[in-house]
């Protein structure tokens, strides 16, 4: 029945399944959608979309798929019943012009002239108007107004349907800003990182083991209390943060990431670097020149069971990665790529988080190089990216 719609949703990457589609059909069969398009829209939305991130995509597909049907249904009696709202000028909007129509507008004196004329006529016109060829109204042939046959140069205020409801809800696209929720807060990051936790029982036995106690009591015949160690977060993380320069743009989101990470992991070590890790890293940005730690020391200090997470935009000159002496601040004897390789050889589980939007990556050569060095384990600093990263690190 709505199979075409269903497949369009799938193509638009709204995660819908056969089960949900059947639910929708069942609901339609029970007459829940009534006979109005709005109700069907609400019903379909509630049955097929299960996450507010996908609401906008759903709206777009719905609008596209059912456009013809709705226009047809509304066109029938719109001619008789349309009520043009009072604020005509406010909703000037939507121009759908073909080349011919554009030419005609030119003939009328261009777009601006058209608007001016429109304004004038609005002032001249006092009441509602229908038909005719000069005034603004419905079903006329003047370039102004709605549902006309003349090039509909300007469509005005078709904003109340005959049911006196608001503009077609799905065309409003109110859920636009919920799409892909790029907004990332400490709390969200924590939730994303939580998947990385590995629980293990180590340390002193200081928690009552109830099932153990019952089992051994039954076996012994007297009350035999069993204890077990508490569960700890057993993941160890080593983070390297790019600091300064182009990273200044991303400072807020990196701060949030940092504060989330700091409370989430029991074993967390962090160091800073600039643009690309070379032979030295540091812990305190103010004393970076006198208190550098050799990268070799870092590699030797932390075992291979640490998960290495590098946070940086990787936006720099390609020479800073590939050539000795390429570093912007001092002479480096070995190329950044060599140091990256050493880090990666030691830390089996590694990932790079990049605050730059993912679709920009291919425009920066340095990001490409880094991406290759990381063997594709570079992720954007979005919730989705963090999710993918934790999945990768957990492997």
């Amino acid at each position, binding site marked *: 029945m709505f199979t075409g719609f269903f497949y369009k949703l799938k193509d638009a990457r709204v995660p819908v399944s056969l089960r949900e589609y059947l639910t929708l059909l069942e609901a339609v069969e029970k007459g829940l959608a009534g006979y109005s398009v709005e109700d069907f829209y609400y019903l379909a939305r509630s049955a097929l979309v*299960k996450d507010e991130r996908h609401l906008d995509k759903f709206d777009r597909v719905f609008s596209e798929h059912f456009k013809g049907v709705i226009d047809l249904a509304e066109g029938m009696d719109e001619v008789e019943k349309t009520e043009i709202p009072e604020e005509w000028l406010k909703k000037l909007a939507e121009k759908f012009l073909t080349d011919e129509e554009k030419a005609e507008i030119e003939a009328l004196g261009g777009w601006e002239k058209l608007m001016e004329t429109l304004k004038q006529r609005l002032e001249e016109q006092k009441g509602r108007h229908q038909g005719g060829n000069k005034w603004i109204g419905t079903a006329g042939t003047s370039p102004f107004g709605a549902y006309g046959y003349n090039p509909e140069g300007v469509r005005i205020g078709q904003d109340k349907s005959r049911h006196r409801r608001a503009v077609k809800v799905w065309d409003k696209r109110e859920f636009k800003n919920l799409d892909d929720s790029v907004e990332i807060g400490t709390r969200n990051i924590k939730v994303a990182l939580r998947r990385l936790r590995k629980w293990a029982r180590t340390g002193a036995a200081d928690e009552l083991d109830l099932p153990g106690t019952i089992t051994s009591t039954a076996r012994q015949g007297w009350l035999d209390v069993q204890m077990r160690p508490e569960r700890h977060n057993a993941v160890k993380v080593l983070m390297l943060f790019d600091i300064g320069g182009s990273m200044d743009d991303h400072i807020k989101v990196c701060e949030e990431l940092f504060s989330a990470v700091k409370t989430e992991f029991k074993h967390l070590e962090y160091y800073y670097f600039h643009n690309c890790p070379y032979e030295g890293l540091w812990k305190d940005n103010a004393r970076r020149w006198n208190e550098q730690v050799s990268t070799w020391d870092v590699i030797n200090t932390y075992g291979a069971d640490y998960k290495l997470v590098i946070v940086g935009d990787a936006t720099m000159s390609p020479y800073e990665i590939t050539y000795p002496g390429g570093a912007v601040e001092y002479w480096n004897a070995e190329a950044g790529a060599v140091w990256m390789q050493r880090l990666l050889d030691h830390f089996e589980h590694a990932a790079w988080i990049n605050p730059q939007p993912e679709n920009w990556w291919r425009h920066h050569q340095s990001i490409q190089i880094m991406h290759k060095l990381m063997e594709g384990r570079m992720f954007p600093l979005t919730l989705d990216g963090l999710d993918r990263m934790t999945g990768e690190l957990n492997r």
Partner: protein
Amino acid sequence: MKFQGTENYVATEDLMVAVNAAITLQRPLLVKGEPGTGKTVLAEEIAKSLGKKLITWSIKSTTRAQQGLYEYDAVSRLRDSQLGDERVHDIGNYIVKGKLWEAFEADGEAPVLLIDEIDKADIEFPNDLLQELDRMEFFVYETQQTVKATNRPIVIITSNNEKELPDAFLRRCFFHYIRFPDADTMAEIIEVHYPGIQKRLVSEALNLFYDMRDVSGLKKKPSTSELLDWLKLLMAEDLPPEALRAKDAKTAVPPMHGALLKNEQDVHLFERLAFMARREGR
């Protein structure tokens, strides 16, 4: 049996469609939305308007799915056995019924079951409830009995989006996202809660409120429940509408802002904005 909102609850049309679909097809309804937009209240109002009993199961981070079904109180049985209590021979005496069981067993009309803030629980929690919510039955191993719902309860589940819910779970639910109400709906909601509140005061307050929500950088945007509290305060103080309108120059911090801004930094931000406005005004 149709839900149409109640005199205390303004339901938008899309919400009504979603609720009625869930009731008719007997599927759970998952409700999400900003905190304070009336997710929990919805279940109460559905129960009230349909004249059904409401059973609330509030989820915490330590809640396990099993607790909703039943719990076997091994400790008291152990104690009873040490004391030689007669009850110890019947294991049924130590089965404590959970909220789901309670909902399944309710006599007469099926109740409304609210599973509140499901995202607080462990990530596997919803998966553990799949079969139980789908078939509305479960098996008690200790007593070898199957508990089956006589009437399928209406299940409302709320989530604050702190965790992603598993796909298999989502597929079985209807979903509704309560979006923040627009100014008209908001005026309706206020009318429902405080009928006859001075019209002008409300419109000034609403303007101010939406302005505040537009200020970028707020840690926690004020929401409907905060607005209602704030209006209550304003009414109690009997402030004239003009007091609210003085927002242009001197006071960018509205009176009684404590009800709206719940965060020190946010109050701070507002005071700074007020300061800047004053400086510009000079």
